[in-house]
């Protein structure tokens, strides 16, 4: 069966939700560029010895965090609410009566949200580089690897949040409950390099903290973030099958 029309229509409908469009697509780049421009210290050059480029602005260390935030925002606030709302409104049940299996709708939305995430991440990188003069990553492949693993781990977590919530509001509540601590570990509140050691150690074992630290290492060309990569692989390996298994279709 051709799921093309379903994907096209769902994309159109997705783009009609102002909250999804703002938080998933615009929020990361807006936060990065906005704060970069507003807080003077963010644009002054780094003075820490040993970093590759002393002339890079301070805000550079914030970019990996913003990428992690983009992943967390879509996977924990946008997607679970959409899935739980499908369940709440009976959309999944309605589809079950047609030749189109409801899992194709979920599949279509995973695709849409991944594409939206790519757009949001690209916007943050391009926005940071052009407006704030952030230099490009030293090891882009490491950043990309960590970004992909962050996506698989966090989307699996989002799927698990959406698996059982029978209302959009419930999914939103649980999502937020995970989202805000995640932001802490991602370095939004306390930048990773100045995080107290115990917090950095804790963050390393959370999917979002590992993502943030891994991408930071890749951006600055530090040693390969092996632990962080393994942590994200492990989270994905545990959460994804669990999310699929527990997902309630009606």
């Amino acid at each position, binding site marked *: 069966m051709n799921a093309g029309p*379903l994907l096209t*229509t769902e994309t159109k*409908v997705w783009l*009609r939700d102002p909250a999804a469009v703002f938080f998933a697509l615009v929020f990361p780049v807006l936060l990065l560029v906005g704060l970069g421009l507003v807080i003077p210290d963010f644009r002054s050059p780094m003075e820490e010895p040993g970093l590759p480029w002393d002339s890079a602005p301070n805000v550079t260390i914030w970019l990996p965090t913003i990428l992690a935030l983009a992943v967390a925002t879509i996977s924990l606030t946008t997607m679970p609410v959409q899935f739980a709302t499908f369940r709440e*409104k*009976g959309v999944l049940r*309605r589809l*079950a009566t047609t*030749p*189109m299996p409801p899992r194709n709708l979920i599949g279509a939305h995973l695709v849409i949200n991944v594409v939206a995430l790519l757009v949001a991440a690209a916007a943050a990188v391009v926005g940071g580089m052009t407006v704030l003069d952030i230099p490009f990553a030293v090891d882009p492949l490491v950043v990309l690897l960590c970004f992909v693993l962050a996506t698989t781990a966090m989307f699996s977590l989002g799927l698990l949040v959406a698996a059982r919530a029978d209302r959009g509001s419930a999914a939103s509540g649980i999502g937020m409950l995970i989202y805000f601590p995640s932001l802490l570990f991602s370095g939004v509140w306390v930048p990773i390099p100045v995080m107290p050691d115990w917090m950095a150690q804790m963050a390393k074992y959370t999917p979002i903290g590992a993502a943030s630290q891994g991408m930071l290492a890749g951006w600055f060309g530090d040693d390969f973030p092996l632990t962080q990569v393994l942590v994200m692989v492990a989270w994905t390996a545990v959460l994804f099958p669990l999310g699929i298994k527990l997902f309630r279709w009606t």
Partner: protein
Amino acid sequence: MTATRSGAGPDDGPPVVDVRNLRKTYRVKGGPEKVAVADVSFEVRRGEIFGILGPNGAGKTTTVECLAGLRRADGGTVRLLGRDPQAAPASVREDVGIQLQEAALHDRITVGEALDVFASFYERRADPAELMDLLDLTEHRNVQFGKLSGGQKQRLSIALALVGKPQVAILDELTTGLDPAARRATWELVERVRDSGVTILLVTHFMDEAERLCDRLVVIDRGTVVAQGTPTELTDGLRRDRGVRLRFAEDTGRGRALDLLTALATRDDDVTAVVSADGEIEVTGTRKVLFAVVRELAAADVVPDDVRTVTHSLEDVFVDVTGRQYRADENDEENVA
């Protein structure tokens, strides 16, 4: 109403739907087992509008959900177009259109988009433009689902059930929440759909709807079939006394009539009971009760302002077979689990 029907009528071929001894129980966590459907059997013939009538919680929706292969039955057999939807739910999807009880679309999808995307799910497709025309939705084609009125949502829901050119359409509580004019319009629409050759299984808790629309029906109560047949068969089958209701504008007239008729009841075998209710007098008796009442009142020159014979409805059938008054929402537990 069978006389006014046009187009395709029921035929004598193999039944389109065959449900035998269907049983479905739920176990709510920690609670006792609840029997949603105890024992339900019926057949639907091609081209008819077949009703499943009963109060909320009687097991109607569970029955059609098992029939559509959306739920696993615990016992009995179901066949839809000769196929087994329990064993192979996918085998009936192309040929059965289902309108579910509740709205089931994203608030931001438009009428036109919903019809187009649902059409893309099926091999055989009705023309969405024609369907919109049939259901008076054309002028709303660019309106988002969340902004439609209850009646428009219901019409769209019916359109979506028909967009795959189904042989059988299952319509569950399709006029709930509609105003009287919209209900009548929907009824006419259902007849038009049937006339186009679609067999219709109508689930309803509205007695008048079943009486008006259904060629045949089953009455379900507490998970079992308590009556079945055509609406006329069911009401004619009542072993009931005939009734006459008399209304008087003035109390004096009513008082005299009551005295006369009460006296009449003691000596005339055709009159069995006289009761005063709601400011009216109801007299019951044999088929000759109307004549007896009129003769008696005419002789005494007591003239009622209004005389009505009491007609029997499916509601009386329900009272007769269950011994309870019909209350549509008496045990609203239809959607457990």
